[in-house]
């Protein structure tokens, strides 16, 4: 092996040589060169994790030095956590026996697309619309542009809400899960009509009819939103948007 390495301009570190030897012993003869780096990375990370865990266990047991038992415990706990293995055979056979006893369900005719109940599907929208209520007087001359706030909705809503406590409670409920995983986007679109509505359903405001949001892109960060907003006050300084909101709060 040493002679083969002489052809490389610089010598390969010992760790890498060991890894090459391990791969050879396990019968892996053809591999890309980057595999060695990946394997070494994994090794370092794994060993570091185990040793750190073992240190924690040793200090928990008020020992001064880490010993073999700590390492063993660390390995065991990490195995159960990261490197789980599939269930044992007898468990599978038992589960299969139970499942296979039930007869196959009959198929109802003429039902359209055959999908599971909605909560098991990914077809629900993963967003909820909220409307911004503004008093007529205060927003005269102000801009109403749609704002998009991304992030955990459980935080305090940045929407200015006018007065009505019911709206507050609704906004606090936005944190409840609407659908499955993925980021939740709060789209706040001020309705062109100046009436304060307490509903946050999309049907309330015609302005949102053109919001095309692809709800099924769960887990993806790209949400296509085209809001065909007819801004009431078309001109305007976008810079002042934030200040506006603060003003609105003040007017509560």
């Amino acid at each position, binding site marked *: 092996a040493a002679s083969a390495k002489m052809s490389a301009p610089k010598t390969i570190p010992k760790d890498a040589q060991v890894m090459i030897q391990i791969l050879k012993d*396990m*019968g892996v003869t053809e591999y890309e060169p980057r595999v060695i780096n990946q394997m070494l990375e994994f090794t370092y990370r794994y060993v570091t994790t185990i040793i750190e865990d073992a240190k924690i266990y040793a200090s928990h047991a008020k020992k001064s030095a880490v010993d073999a038992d700590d390492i063993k415990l660390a390995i065991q706990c990490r*195995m159960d956590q990261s*490197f789980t*293995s*599939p*269930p*044992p*055979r*007898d468990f*599978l*056979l038992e*589960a*299969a*026996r139970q*499942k*296979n006893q*039930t007869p*196959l*369900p*009959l*198929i109802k*005719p*003429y039902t359209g*697309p*055959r*999908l*599971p*109940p909605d909560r*098991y*599907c*990914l*077809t629900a929208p993963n967003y909820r619309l909220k409307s911004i209520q503004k008093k007529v007087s205060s927003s005269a001359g102000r801009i109403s542009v749609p704002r998009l706030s991304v992030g955990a909705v459980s935080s305090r809503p940045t929407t200015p809400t006018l007065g009505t406590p019911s709206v507050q409670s609704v906004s606090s409920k936005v944190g409840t899960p609407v659908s499955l995983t993925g980021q939740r986007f709060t789209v706040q679109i001020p309705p062109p009509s100046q009436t304060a509505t307490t509903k946050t359903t999309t049907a309330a405001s015609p302005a949102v*009819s053109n919001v*095309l949001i*692809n709800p*099924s*892109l*769960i*887990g*993806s960060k790209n949400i296509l939103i085209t809001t065909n907003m007819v801004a009431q006050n078309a001109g305007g300084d976008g810079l002042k948007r934030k200040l506006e909101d603060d003003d609105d709060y003040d007017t509560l």
Partner: protein
Amino acid sequence: MAAVQGSIVDAKDEADIKTEPATDGFGNNHANDAGVLSASPGSSAAAGNNKPAAGAPEDQQTLLAVLQFLRKNKLSESAEILRREAGLPEEALDPKGADSAGSGLGSGADVDGGDASALLSRVTVSAPGGAKAPTKAGEDQPDVNVVLSAYSQQGDPALYEVYYSGLKKFIESVLDCHRAELSQVFYPLFVHMYLELVYNNHEGEAKAFFEKFSGDQECYYEEDLRILSSLTKKEHMRGNETLLDFRTSKFVLRISRDSYQLLKRHLQERQNNQIWNIIQEHLYIDIFDGMPRSKSQIDAMSGSLAGEAKREANKAKVYYGLLKEPEIELPLDDEDEEAENEEGKPKKKKPKKDSTGSKSKKQDPNAPSQTRIPLPELKDSDKLDKIMYMKESTKRIRLGPDNLPSICFYTFLNAYQGLTAVDVTDDSSLIAGGFADSTVRVWSVTPKKLRKVKTAADLNLIDKESDDVLERIMDDKTASESKCLYGHSGPVYGISFSPDRNYLLSCSEDGTVRLWSLLTFTCLVGYKGHNYPVWDTQFSPYGYYFISGGHDRVARLWATDHHQPLRIFAGHLADVTCTRFHPNANYVATGSSDRTIRLWDVLTGNCVRIFTGHKGPIHALAFSPNGKFLASGATDGRVLLWDIGHGLMVGELKGHTECIYSLRFSRDGEILGSGSMDNTVRLWDATKAFDDLETDDFTAATGHIHLQDNSQELLLGTYMTKSTPVVHLHFTRRNLLLAAGAYNP
């Protein structure tokens, strides 16, 4: 000769201890001197109490074993009662002594083991060789056996090598005709002995044992042995489910009666029953009457992780026939199909009946009934599809050895070795690829572009009554050559189009199977059940059902409208790597890393066939269009052909040098195409391969298969690609062969 365990003697109340001189005088009856016990030296030999001596019945032995067990656990009252009722003599037997002959093992370390093995050996060897089948003893002893020797130490680890070499020497000395069969014992015995040593923490001896004997094993077990070599401690065994299953399941061997008698006699004559114990506990010997099999016959069938298949495993009736196609009237057409016209008069406008469906009105006895499993009813769109299908099939080219199909290869460029799965719709209009970056892409093969359905607002505006409503619902603004589907969080290992081209399934390393709509190109459902990578998935030929198989060693049957699986097919020892539906949707074939193929019944979930013979994990399966045969391809580069009805291997096609990843029969079953990692597509003559099997005279009883070595004759052509491994094969409805792969320079 047996050593005395002082501690046990002290514990016992009985004063009289029988002495059984373990001399050859009793050798025949007990067949081992490890059998018994002698008391402390100097105790009188109660000659009159040689009860097991003169041909004592087996029951006596069992009773004694039970009695000893009770005593060992200090259940003295029960022991007394048993002894009284069974009429056993007063003297107790103190089983002590090491297992092996002449080893004088009486070390304290093996106390329990010594007990166990002594009892075992006594109970096991009940009769002179041949007079009684020792297997009967084996059946009597399981209760005691199980309790006393749960894979615990059975003998001195240092002697394992001695036992194994002894057996080797014996087998080398038998007649040639028996040697091949008896050599089957080597591999499972080797593995179990090694595992036992590892399990009982004898690392050094295990390593030495491994080094000495691993080279003798058959070459096709090389992969397993390499995995074993890295397993040196008991903790290593914990996470390895496959090996744990191997330990607990029985390795099946099929040996003719004569060979078996030889082996049994030899093991019982010898003084160590260690090997016999292992054989009884971990091996299942399926005995058949008849000629011993030759080496080549054995090699053809062996290679799997569980040995071969028991005869009973392949006896269930399988309905391999096809379901009757519904009668559909073809619409009047003005094309020049005079030849098909029943009246023979050209241009006579007469509705044609379904000419490709089954003509016979009576039920095929080998076909399942239409209602055996519930199937979705045919919608109007399905009927239209069927009509198209029949029209296309009239234009189908008949293939044969002198009429080979043209092959059109779809190369995926710039896939950066990430192409992991491909599927083509039945009418060859769409092609989809699953990639290692967790995306799925769908392309249109025809010039017609892919379009999404319009939004709800726009759909309100269209005229629902017009004839081409299905065209109007499509939004032309979204037309594109290909569409990309995002959603998985791991490489996509399997994809499958639904027969009605509305849905696409994909399964991935993230453990989920996703259903995508091909109208909106969005994900509809994620089926979670496997918590481990799912290696393959497929829609049933009639839609609605689909199967998936993964790393958790089971295959699951799902329906699109149930979020949990309907059936779980458990039984494989290692990952399920390939899952395929039978053309009649009543059966599912699964190929696995344990090198077996199993056929499962959808109705009951039972395994109805086990096919062994591959020497590597199976990656490709294909059913013949008539439903009678199954072709399988594995990493060993061979394609094996199986007769489903009889459960036998009927052909072996050698030629590929690397793993075979795709297999497909032509539309009428005349040609089998195989694509492999060695960058070739090979065409084989399927009609000829199955030709002389139409007769029904198989000797299924013995499993003697006579495979002709006619791979060369059956090979019709080898077509090389330019460094592109072939991942998928598909015969169009007119028998043009499409192949797909990613360019891999």
